[in-house]
């Protein structure tokens, strides 16, 4: 069998393939082009959702005196009576849910 390494073309190709290419900043350019760190976003989404939920719940709790009924609130809103305590509580909860939805949509996009 012919010794492959005696073949000058074979040797030339292998020598050329072994010749290293200098980094010359390439690895740094790749590192800079990587997407933002996943770790930074991992805590952001739950934190935003949780804080907005808490804020919405707090708002609803502050606006709604004890004894209010969410069902009654939605019925009041349906009857265009949005100033009743129950209606305000329902509006507060709806607002909190809207904020959560907005946060989730923003995170997805």
């Amino acid at each position, binding site marked *: 069998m012919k010794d492959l390494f005696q073949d000058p073309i074979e040797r*030339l190709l292998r020598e050329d393939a072994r010749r290293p*290419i200098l980094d010359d900043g*390439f690895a740094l350019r790749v590192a800079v082009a990587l997407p933002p*760190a996943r770790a930074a976003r991992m805590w952001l989404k739950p934190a935003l959702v949780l804080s907005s939920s808490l804020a919405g719940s707090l708002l609803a709790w502050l606006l709604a005196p004890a004894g209010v009924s969410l069902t009654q609130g939605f019925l009041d809103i349906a009857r265009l009576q949005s100033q009743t305590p129950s209606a305000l509580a329902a509006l507060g909860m709806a607002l909190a849910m809207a904020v959560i939805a907005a946060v989730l949509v923003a995170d997805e996009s």
Partner: protein
Amino acid sequence: MNGRPEPADAELVLAVVAHDDRKAFTRLVRRHESMVRSVLRRLSRGDHGLADDLAQETFLLAWRNLRAFRFDARFSTWLYRIAFNAWLSDARKRREVLLDDEAQAPVPEEPGRAVSAAERIDLERALGCLSDGERAAIAACYYADLTHEEAAEAIGIPLGTVKSHILRAKAKLRAKLAEDSR
């Protein structure tokens, strides 16, 4: 001197996947960039700018798809596939790429020709004279150090075609050498 052995590719891949470890990924880039960039330089007919753009795209694609790496092949083989596909899709935007062009007339061998001037020829330019399929086969088997079987799978052509591409490419290079040495 640090006595710790260099971590294997698999360890670095796991560190990236599990901990989003960018330093581990940069180590993988430094370890394999020479192979990826030289393969792409050969495929791009010596266009170093284009080759480096495609090499960067290759590593970014590798980063995004690292979870899909199954450890059933060498990491370098997996990277070669990404690099080859990046080159192929870029080349196909501009022209038709034929990888399976076996119908060419054989290049006559020139046995006995002195090739002592081999080191002096511009190998990059000589490789540029090869067909897309021949360059792909040479890049895979010499610059990415794949076996013929791995090259056939990565390029997507039959094993026999890889072997004939290699033979024909070497014959063309030998002829080019002989021509240059006259």
